[in-house]
C-alpha cells in the first residue's frame, strides 16, 4: 500500500499511514498480524460500553480514549488504532504511543509496565516506581555509562514458549524532565537543542544512538527494581519480600483500572506470578534530591553480579 510505513514497537509490528518518528522500522514488514495505525473517524462514545471512565470507555473488544482538544483514539481487537487529532500532531503521537498503545497491549494480553529498562550482560533490568521516582533518570544515567536502553516510560513483558519473561524493545528515546537533564549534566545550551515531548511541556525527548546506545531486540528479564527515593545515601538494593513482590509488580501495570475493566487482570496476574517465580524484585533506594547518580551504576552492577 503506498504511503504506509512499517515499524516495530515493543515487539509489535505496526503498519502506519502516519510518520512515527521515534519508532524503529520493522524488520518484518509482511507480518500478517501487524497492527494498523491510521487517521480516521473516531466516535465520541461507544454505544455498547461496559465501563465508562473520565478519559475512556471500554466495550467488548474496543477501547475509546478521549483527551479533549488533543485527540481521540479507538483501539480495536488488538489489531488497530484509529485516531482523530484535535490538536497538534506531536501531542497526538505522544498519547498514541504511550497511552493508546498500552491499551492495545492489554487487548493482546501483553503486560505493560510503567517503567524503564536497560540491557545488561545478565539480561533486561527493569526500573519501576511511582511518578517522579527517577525511573527514566536512572536509565539515562546507566546509558551514559555505556549500557544500552531497552525502553523508557513503557515496558512490555511477555512470556515466551518456555515461560521465560521477555522484555520487549521500545524506542531509542528517553523522556526526561528538565531537572533530570540538569542532574545528568546537560547544560542549558544542550537542553535548548532538545525537542519538548509536546508543546508547553518541560519534559524532553533525549534520543540515544540507535546503534551504539539502544537494544533493538527482546531480552530475558533478569532483575526488577522498585525505585524508591529516600533521604540517605549511598544507594542500596534491599530485596522486596516475596509476599510484597507480586502486589508491587501488579501495582506498576500501566492503566491498571483499564486492564481490570477489559477483563485482562487475571491474565496479567498469571504473567506477573510467572515473573515472580523466575526473577527477584529489589528496591533501589537513592537520595532523591541532588543525588549523585554516578553512584548508582556500581551498586546496580554489584547487585547483578550476584545473580
Amino acid at each position: 500500500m503506498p504511503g504506509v510505513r512499517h515499524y516495530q514497537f515493543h515487539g509489535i509490528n505496526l503498519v502506519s499511514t502516519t510518520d512515527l518518528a521515534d519508532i524503529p522500522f520493522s524488520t518484518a514488514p509482511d507480518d500478517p498480524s501487524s497492527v494498523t495505525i491510521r487517521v480516521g473517524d473516531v466516535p465520541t462514545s461507544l454505544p455498547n460500553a461496559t465501563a465508562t471512565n473520565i478519559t475512556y470507555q471500554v466495550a467488548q473488544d474496543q477501547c475509546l480514549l478521549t483527551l479533549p482538544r488533543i485527540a481521540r483514539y479507538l483501539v480495536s481487537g488488538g489489531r488497530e488504532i484509529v485516531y482523530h487529532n484535535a490538536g497538534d500532531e506531536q501531542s497526538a503521537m505522544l498519547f498514541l504511543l504511550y497511552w493508546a498503545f498500552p491499551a492495545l497491549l492489554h487487548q493482546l494480553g501483553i503486560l505493560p509496565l510503567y517503567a524503564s529498562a536497560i540491557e545488561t550482560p545478565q539480561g533486561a533490568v527493569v526500573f519501576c516506581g511511582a511518578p517522579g521516582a527517577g525511573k527514566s533518570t536512572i536509565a539515562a544515567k546507566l546509558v551514559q555509562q555505556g549500557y544500552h536502553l531497552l525502553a523508557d516510560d513503557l515496558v512490555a513483558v511477555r512470556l515466551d514458549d518456555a515461560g521465560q519473561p521477555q522484555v520487549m524493545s521500545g524506542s531509542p528515546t528517553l523522556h526526561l524532565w528538565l531537572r533530570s537533564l540538569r542532574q545528568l549534566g546537560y547544560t542549558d545550551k544542550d537542553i535548548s537543542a532538545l525537542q519538548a515531548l509536546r508543546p508547553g511541556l518541560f519534559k524532553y525527548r533525549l534520543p540515544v544512538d540507535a546503534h551504539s546506545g539502544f537494544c533493538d531486540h527482546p531480552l530475558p528479564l533478569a532483575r526488577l527494581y522498585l525505585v524508591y527515593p529516600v533521604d540517605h545515601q549511598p544507594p542500596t538494593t534491599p530485596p522486596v519480600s516475596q509476599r510484597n513482590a507480586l502486589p508491587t509488580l501488579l501495582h506498576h501495570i500501566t492503566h491498571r483500572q483499564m486492564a481490570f475493566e477489559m477483563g485482562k487482570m487475571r491474565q496479567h496476574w498469571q504473567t506477573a506470578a510467572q515473573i515472580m517465580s523466575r526473577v527477584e524484585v529489589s528496591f533501589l533506594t537513592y537520595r532523591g534530591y541532588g543525588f549523585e547518580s554516578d553512584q548508582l551504576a556500581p551498586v546496580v552492577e554489584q547487585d547483578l553480579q550476584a545473580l
Partner: protein
Amino acid sequence: MNRIFWLASYPKSGNTWMRAFLSNYGSDAEQPVDINNLNYTLPVSDRQIFDEILSMDTGNLRQDELDYFRPSVYRRLAGKTQTQQSVFWKIHDAFQRLPDGEPIFPQDLTGGVVYIVRSPLDVAVSYAYHSGISIDQAINWMADREHGLFNLPVRLYQVHQRMLSWSEHVLSWTEQTDLPLIFTRYEDMTFNPLPTFTKVIEFVRAAYPDVMIDDMGRIERALRFSSFDELQKQEHKHGFVEKDQRAATFFRKGKVGDWRNRLTSEQVQRILNDHGAVMRQYGYLTESGEIVEFG
C-alpha cells in the same frame, strides 16, 4: 454527597497538625495515631491518584489540561473512598475556578472547608527551611502570584498546586462563597486550643456521625496526641513520609513568633509591604500597623 471536608492552607501553616488532630479525634485510640498513617485524611495532590483515576501518565498533560479533569477526578475519588477513613482532603491550592466558572473543588462533593492561616512572618521562616531555600527566596515566592507547589518545570510526584501569593491565597478562600468555610488561625490553635479545635469539630460534625460532639475528653486527648512534641517525637523515631527531602525535619519548631529570631528588619518590612493589608484584616497587624503579639 457533600461529605468531603477540604483542609486548605498555604504550606507550613498547620495543615498537618490539623490532620493529626482530626485523625486522632476520629480514631479515639489509646495511643497516638501514626503520623505516617493519618487515617480520616488524604493528601489529594498525589500524582498517583490522578494517574490511577485517569489511567494515564498525567505528567504528559499541561497544567490547564490537568486542571480540567480535577473536579471529575475528585468526584471519582470520593466514589472510590466510601468509608469515613478519608473524609478530610488536604490541599495547598488557592481557591480557583475553571474557565467555565466551575470551582476546581466541586460544590456537590463538599461538606466544608477548614481554612488555616498563619502569620506570613512565621510562614516565611518555616517555608524557607522546609524547601531548602533562603528566607529571601521564600519571601519572593510568597509575593509571587505565579507561585505554586510542584510547578513546572520540576513537577514530579505531586500534581501542580497553584497557590497565588500568600495574600491572594487567603483572600481566594475567605472571599469565595461557593463552599462553606471555617477560618482558623495557627496562633489560636497554639494558644487557645480547646475552644479553637472544638469549633472545628462542630463545623465538621458530619464527618463523625457516630460521635457525640460535646465529648470534651475526646477532644482533649486528640489534642494531646497531636501535640507538636508528639509529632516531632514520632518523626524523630520513624521519619515522616511527607517531609520534603531538602529539609532535615518536617516538624521543626512550630513556635509562634520565631520570626523575631530569624528575620532581619528588612525582611519583616518586605513582608509587611507585600501582605500588610491582609495581615491587618486577619488580626496580624493593628489598625495603626503594629505587629500583633500572640501568647
